[in-house]
């Protein structure tokens, strides 16, 4: 009896979350380090290979479990698995060796397993399992180094995570009890008590850093290693968005009530992150605030999706935005890690390019995502376009600040770094990052790119202008003419020096 059942199971679905768990047991460092990228492979393959609608039911597990891939889940799994795979590749040589190495790998695997599981979960039990596993195990990744800052960051992260999980648990119980089932497929079309919706939203709202519930996010990102920040910012926080979509019955009265709040909270979050991010100096913390701001946009979108269940364009926009942000932010964080190790100028250039992608300059995924969002805005929410427009401006400013902070970091560490700080990056670090950057630049071309519209570029240019103004050096009295004269003098001086040097070389 058991045999045919076993044969029918799509093993990839089981392998994707379970293989990392098995890998967690491997204590050997040399094998273990290569397992980091391998672990995410089944999930990635599953996202590509398995058709939408594949599912596997495990009625004996937990409260009756169903894992599967639906339209949302497929892209989500792709996004998730890719970031995990490349961050894993980056980590093969990117993590300090020593006693905590194995611990890092164990927690990496557990977090990965949880993340994959929650994406594939089609019931509340396994979603909550994945959510809790990911949330708790990520603590081990954040608090990896034993310093006072990481310890504090870890503690704050953990407190908020546990709070979120408990609230989500309460919400899940409430939801499951109200609809009489633990399967997400049963949620659609049902009406939930408002309290249930609020509990779920609050629980997941911590993960998506709703304003007020966001405390942990910048602190944790600041302390975590680059690969972990990439994962945290790129994929893990998005679990909150997925959860909202999964748990709440779109279009139901109570959901709509909360969803309107979500829209406004998202908008607030989008600017809140920028305002406070602009006053930060550490590059990773600025990126973290940018994540908060971008999550605000995602929350806003989620709020819209939850109000209009049948709107496929809106759902697609949300997915595109998730993918866009996950990959760009991942690449940015990994890039910062490399930059801090090498301090090289050309890396700074790539980071600037990535920042521009995030901002959404034409021909990038940012432009694609933003344009699809604008196109999908429902009729009665058209005024949000202005908000999004302003948010582009704000993001540009924040990215300017980010680039400035990198430059400042380089200046501070230039003298000291070559001697005693970080070792030069390993090959896999470069490889992982490079693939991600390639992918970020390339994937929008899979889609029909939006037509170039000046209106979309204006906020970017405006922002760049403001950044330029802010970054201008002191301007001497007499302004432009004096500056020109000064530059001319400097240029001539430089040419003369160059000539002297090379003449000597030539003559020798």
């Amino acid at each position, binding site marked *: 009896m058991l045999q045919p059942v076993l044969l029918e199971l799509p093993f990839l679905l089981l392998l994707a979350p379970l293989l990392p768990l098995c890998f967690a047991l491997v204590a050997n460092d040399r094998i273990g380090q290569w397992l980091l990228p391998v672990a995410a492979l089944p999930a990635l393959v599953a996202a590509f290979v398995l058709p939408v609608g594949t599912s596997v039911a495990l*009625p*004996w*597990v*937990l*409260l*009756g479990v169903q894992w599967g891939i639906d339209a949302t889940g497929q892209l989500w799994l792709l996004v998730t698995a890719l970031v995990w795979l490349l961050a894993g590749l980056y980590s093969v040589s990117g993590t300090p060796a020593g*006693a905590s190495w194995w*611990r890092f790998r164990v927690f990496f695997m557990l977090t990965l397993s949880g993340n994959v599981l929650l994406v594939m979960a089609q019931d509340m*039990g396994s979603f*909550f*399992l994945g959510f*809790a596993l990911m949330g*708790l195990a990520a603590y*081990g990744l954040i*608090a990896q180094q*034993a310093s006072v800052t990481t310890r504090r960051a870890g503690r704050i992260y*953990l407190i908020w995570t*546990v*709070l979120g*999980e*408990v*609230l989500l*648990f*309460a919400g899940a*119980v*409430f939801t*499951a*009890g*109200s609809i009489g089932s633990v399967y997400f497929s049963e949620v659609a079309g049902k009406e939930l008590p408002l309290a249930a919706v609020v509990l779920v939203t609050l629980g997941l709202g911590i993960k998506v850093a709703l304003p007020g519930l966001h405390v942990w996010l910048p602190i944790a990102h600041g302390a975590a290693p680059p690969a972990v920040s990439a994962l945290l910012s790129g994929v893990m926080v998005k679990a909150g968005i997925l959860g909202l979509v999964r748990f709440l019955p779109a279009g139901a009265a109570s959901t709509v009530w909360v969803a309107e709040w979500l829209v406004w909270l998202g908008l607030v979050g989008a600017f809140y992150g920028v305002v406070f991010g602009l006053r930060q100096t550490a590059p990773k913390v600025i990126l973290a605030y940018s994540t908060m701001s971008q999550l605000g946009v995602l929350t806003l979108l989620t709020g819209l999706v939850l109000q209009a269940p049948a709107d496929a364009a809106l759902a697609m926009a949300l997915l595109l935005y998730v993918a866009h942000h996950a990959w760009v932010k991942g690449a940015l964080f990994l890039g910062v890690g490399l930059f801090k190790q090498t301090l090289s100028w050309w890396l700074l250039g790539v980071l600037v390019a990535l920042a521009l992608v995030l901002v959404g300059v034409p021909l990038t995924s940012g432009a694609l995502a933003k344009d699809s969002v604008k196109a999908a805005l429902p009729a009665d929410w058209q005024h949000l376009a202005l908000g999004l427009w302003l948010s582009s401006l704000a993001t540009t400013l924040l990215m300017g600040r980010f680039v400035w902070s990198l430059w400042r970091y380089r200046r501070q560490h230039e003298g000291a770094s070559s001697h005693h700080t970080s070792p030069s990056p390993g090959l896999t670090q470069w490889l992982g990052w490079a693939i991600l950057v390639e992918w970020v630049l390339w994937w929008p071309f899979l889609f029909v790119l939006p037509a170039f519209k000046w209106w979309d570029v204006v906020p970017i240019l405006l922002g760049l202008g403001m950044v330029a103004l802010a970054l201008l050096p002191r301007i001497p009295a007499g302004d432009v003419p004096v500056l020109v004269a000064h530059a001319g003098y400097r240029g001539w001086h430089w040419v003369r020096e160059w000539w002297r040097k090379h003449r000597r070389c030539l003559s020798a």
Partner: protein
Amino acid sequence: MNELLNVLTDALGENLPLWIVLSSFSVGLVIFFVQEGSHRLRTTLNLLAAVVKLLLVGVLIWGVYHGQVYEVRWVIAPNLELLLHADALSMLFVTLSALLWLVTTVYAIGYLEHSPHRSRFFGFFSLCVSATVGLALAGNLVTFVMFYEFLTLATYPLVAHKGSHEARKAARLYLAYTFTGGLLLLVAVVWLKSIAGPLTFVQGGILDSLPAETHSALRWIFLLMIVGLGVKAALVPLHGWLPKSMVAPAPVSALLHAVAVVKAGAFGIVRVVYDVYGVEFAAFLGVLVPLGVVAAFTIVYGSTLALFQDSLKKRLAYSTVSQVSYIILGTAILGPLATVGGIVHLVHQGIMKITLFFAAGNYAETLGIHRVSQMNGVGKRMPLTTLAFTLGALGMIGIPPMAGFISKWYLGLGALEAGVLLWVMPVLIASSLLNAAYFLPILYRAWFLPADPWPDEHIKAQRWETHGMLLWPPVITASLALLAGLLASAPFSPLEWAQLITAREYK
């Protein structure tokens, strides 16, 4: 296999419950007379009894599953009879006791390897389990009371075992509490019997046909019974003995907290509410809500006090105070889902808490660690033990896939069903948060902080991190706690069994 089991059931006949009780009782008596030095003989006897009991329980389950009725009656006085029988609820508790007894016996043998008075210890240890099994199999309140008192007697020497001034004081306190409780229970039972006649446990209760003028007396009796049982179940404010009795050796603490004493109280409350009063009738009398409030208060109070304990075992003790009340909370909420949550927690709390105590005992016995503040870096030195501890702790918080998650899930659903979510859910949330607040720092210390020198390392790490007989019991129980949660919906899981029981309790 089936034939063998059939032959066995026939051979043992209706008296099987009696044999199950006697299997440890008789061996306990024999062990008293085993010479202190004959380690091997005593160990053989212990393990033999535990295995035999487990097998007998297996046969019992088999028999009940195939519709055999087991009932042993013994009239001890006119109108007063001892009745042992096996129904679904008792099977749950018997299986738990028999299983955990085997594990605890192994653990205790390892734990007490070189300490004095082992024959005395194991003798009482066996008697204690006999009492537990007896009250699990009790078919009426009279029998239950007798085994309840017997349990008090059998555990007193275990608490006092170390013989230090502190241990004796704790044992005295334990006795003062539990004996007073037992006496009140006795009074209540006699009173109830004078009103309602023979108090046989019947699913769905036996009292709902009594005339209305007895109802006020029934409420008083309920109060007395809950006080009497609540002492063992450590309901606040009757819990004072529990943290103090932590002076006992680790296997005893494990047994007290997971299987025998607190469970006897909780099990008794379940019995009284469901099989004597009947949960619907109890709700009609209006006695469930106060019970629920007390349980809720206990849950929060226990967790809060646990936060402030530096002694590991004391922290676990307060955690027990809190966790056992989940069972009572589930009982006090009217509705099948809450019942499932309460009853299944009887098992889940048992296997999780016993894991934690085993691990705590391992720390103490291997490295001399008694306090939380000494646990820095212990995860590296004792990974398996600490892993078991971690699983137990996560279960206590209620994180899937551990067993505790399932309990809390059903309690929450039950509260929703009964329309009392408004005050139950905050309790569940607060307790989970508090549980996290007192368990996660321990895990943090154990796994993330660098190790300090151990206070007193008795057992060096060789092939395993500690003595094998100490190591495997927590690993096994932790696996059970994991499986009970992970495979909660599988056939024969505790959850399924609890659902079966519940289906029969609601008429």
